[in-house]
């Protein structure tokens, strides 16, 4: 057993994560501005920025979905009950006792069970909700039937706003959880450099050294 710096977030993943983060912040700011919840920005500018950020994110997602499927990365998000309760118990109780996070990251499994199930829900429920309502909103001009769809737009707007609030809640929790376990910087660093310190078994290390030497930092 040895601790090594292993590449767990490759270049596309990091690019995806950070530009998605920027896009989401733009979307939240412009979206809530359009909704009239803050006074900053001109309606036309806000809508244009919102649409551009949304289109960018949609394109990014097409690539991300393709990447997930073709590289097998989707397996990281397969939910498991194994250790789930211990992680949940850690955040609820053990963290206050100063205990260590129970999850040990593997190079083939980068998320803890609670993380995995949260991200899975994010990708399967919240993102589709925001995309479907957003696409309906964006394409209103294409499917609106004048007076007949007066009411429909309101429901689309409601669904889209609900998803936006949920997204904001997720981001708050997401950022906060970076402060748990290790330090904030230690959590963020892997998503910047790609490398995280991971305990490798001798077999794993031998495999990586032999077949994927690029993933090990010297």
């Amino acid at each position, binding site marked *: 057993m040895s601790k090594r710096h292993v590449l767990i977030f490759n270049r596309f993943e990091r690019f995806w994560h950070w530009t998605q983060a920027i896009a989401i912040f733009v979307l939240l700011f412009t979206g809530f501005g*359009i909704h*009239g919840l803050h006074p900053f920005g001109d309606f036309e500018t806000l*809508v*244009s920025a919102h*649409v551009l950020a949304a289109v960018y994110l949609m394109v990014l997602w097409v690539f991300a979905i393709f990447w997930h499927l073709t590289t097998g990365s989707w397996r990281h998000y397969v939910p498991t009950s194994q250790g789930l309760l211990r992680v949940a118990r850690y955040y609820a109780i053990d963290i*206050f006792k100063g205990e260590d996070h129970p999850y040990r990251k593997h190079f083939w499994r980068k998320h803890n069970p609670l993380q995995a199930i949260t991200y899975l829900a994010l990708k399967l429920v919240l993102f589709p909700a925001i995309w479907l309502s957003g696409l309906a909103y964006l394409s209103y001009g294409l499917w609106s039937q004048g007076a007949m769809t007066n009411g429909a737009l*309101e429901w689309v*707007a409601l669904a889209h706003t609900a998803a936006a609030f949920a997204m904001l809640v997720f981001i708050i929790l997401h950022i*906060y959880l970076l402060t748990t376990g290790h330090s904030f910087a230690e959590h963020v660093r892997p998503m910047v450099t790609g490398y995280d310190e991971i305990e490798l078994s001798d077999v794993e290390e031998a495999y990586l050294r032999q077949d994927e030497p690029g993933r090990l930092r010297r």
Partner: protein
Amino acid sequence: MIQWTGVAGRSTLLATVLWLGGLVFSTGAAATQELPRIDPHAGYQSEPGISEYTETSAARPVDKSVTRLSERKGPVSTTDHAKLKELEGPFASGPDVTRACLGCHTEAGHQFTKNKHWTWRYDHPVTGQKLGKSVLINNFCTNARGNEGMCAQCHAGYGMTDAKTYDFANQENIDCLICHESTGTYYKTPPTRGNKACSVMFTDKPAIDLVKVAQSVTLPGRNNCGACHFYGGGGDNVKHGDLSSVLFQPSRSIDVHMGEDGENFSCVICHVGEGHEWAGSRYNMVGKDTKGTGKPGMPRDTATCESCHGHDPHPLNLVGVKLNDHTDRVACETCHIPTFARGGVATKVAWDWRTAGRLKNGEGFKLEGYTQGDGKHRHTYKSIKGTFAYDENVVPSYAWFNGVVDYTTIDTRFGDQRPVAINKPLGDASDPDARIWPFKLMHTVQPYDKGNNTLVYMHLWGDNRDAFWGNYDFGRAIERGMADNGIPYSGQYGFVETVSYWPINHMVTPKQDALSCKQCHAREGRLKDLPGFYMPGRDSNAWFDRIGILAVLAALAGVLLHALLRIVMRARRKG
């Protein structure tokens, strides 16, 4: 159910607060417009009679506007009327000229006698109402009926002193010149002289050279149409708000189509037609043009914006595509005419007939209490009419409108709702044919039949003791106006608040001056009171937003508590 929104215009009204001792009047609890008061110290002018239509009976600037869409932008007629021997004269009278015109234009007379400029009648194909100037009541001078001796100054014919007895079959009485002459020297005076006090309207008029005028005929320019239409309601821009003398020679910034430094269109470029019938009457408008430009080679037959610009006029970019999405529910005019009564000529927005009839030394008088943008003074009080308020650069009011207007006519018994709508544009958000349109609202307090709850015809003009303009007696004027037309009258008149709606279609701005999104897409935007539909930026579900904000706050509070607990526990462990 008609739903309205009103947006207050720039309050130049309030600046014109005047006051005349002894002329205190209350605008009433429900009055919607602030009327100017009358100032006892301000100078007043004695006015022996009225000078309402002096502009119509005067020479006008002649515009060289484009009357045919052609590369040459000039006349393309195959005939120079100045070379016709038929027009060498001499002509003793207008009908003499008309006879000469009809000698060649054999069908023109028949065609024009069908036109509402001649008939003053309009049978509405949708509502079935009998309309037209000869019967309608408005909330300006109220009624032309019985006052044709004055009002028919703007009848496109000669000598209509009474619409009931006028010979509408006599084509020789058609006034071809008022629409077709191009010298600017032809004018009309009222058909009768009215009360002796009105003589001012007929003095110092230059003689008309009928030969010169007849030889100048061409397609109508703005000066032809404008001679009457810019002065509707008794003066420059009084009635419409978007039709003023500014449009004789406007700049492009006032009207992007008519601007002399732009397209320089005449009225007939948009108000297209053949055979003396043309498009664009506001009695029955095209609320939503579904035809657009039509297929190549198809003729334009409406005055709609879409008949030239199509349904998708905005460029195919991020914003333009969204704007094109609006055209099915928002009239072009709504965004492209951000304000009306621009260019220095004000429009009348409120009128109170109750103060009419005050005299000084036994004479009627007028006060000029409003100075408009071009420096001209406008009357804020006239003994013959009452008190007025004006406004300029007015933000329109907005309403759903499907093109059909319902009128309160002389035989309409109205209920208790105030103000009484003189005309109501029909449609609402659930009406697929309706779009959001801009309107000028005119607020008036005017006489009505208290016993029958109807509007009244007033006998205003005439050389007799019943004519209000001269004798200032509402009782007699109404009694006579009703009796002459066989309308039941209870004998009791009062004053009622009325409102009329004037669709705003002219004074389209260059595109960079069109409304921006936020002027409507905002909580306190121009459409803040227009119901029946969801509009982003304006509408939200308050409870829904509260729950969302609470969820976000709860998440923040949760992580803060969690963090606090961690810090406290760590300190305790160390301690």
